[in-house]
């Protein structure tokens, strides 16, 4: 198990780790399989993260007043 795959899928690895992880990915079937499996999660988090009608250029997070 290589936990960096989650950070890679989410796009939050630091630059140096990103390069190294992609090289690792080339030869690790387990991480390749998890890369596919975890793909839905950031997309679903985007529904929470991004305001649907964002019109400002700085893309503020969704307003969450009850």
């Amino acid at each position: 198990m290589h936990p960096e795959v989650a950070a890679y899928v989410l796009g939050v690895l630091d630059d140096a780790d990103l390069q190294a992880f992609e090289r690792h990915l080339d030869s690790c079937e387990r991480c390749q399989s998890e890369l596919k499996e975890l793909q839905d999660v950031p997309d679903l988090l985007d529904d929470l993260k991004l305001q649907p009608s964002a019109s400002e250029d700085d893309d503020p997070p969704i307003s969450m007043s009850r």
Partner: protein
Amino acid sequence: MCPVLGHLDDMEHRIQALYEQFGGPLLRHVRKTTGNDLQWAEDVVQETMVRAWRHSDRLQWEPGLVWAWLLTVARRIVIDGRRRRSARPREVEPPEADTVPVPDGCDRALSAIVVADALRSLSQEHREVIEQTYLRDRTISEAAEILGIPPGTVKSRLYYGIRALRGLLRDKGVAG
């Protein structure tokens, strides 16, 4: 023909072929994350195609894996772009798991409620690393500094947190 020009010609052809294969679906996917900024989305797709061409050995993977890789590359490019755009100091309230967006009748708002609910069900350790990284466009080392824990711990908690979140979202029928 001059070898250099021949090479460029070949590169252009291969990038064109990548566009034909992946460009449309990738653009539709990326647009959802650029706030419908089409120009930005097109730039992201172009940069993704160039990177795909540079690592064309990965295009030999099976199609599902190639697609997952391209989505991941594009996602990172969008995040880097958003970080650059918001480089000026500002403090906005980030999404918190214990608040719920106002439903506006669209699928995305409904999905956001389900995701917020699932996040709330996670342990605090798992929830906070997801909030401090992806939801705030922060890298592992930035989140590690804020949380006062080693980067390796952030990576590990993020892995288990994301797996747990995916399990919950699958149970709710929103993840594949």
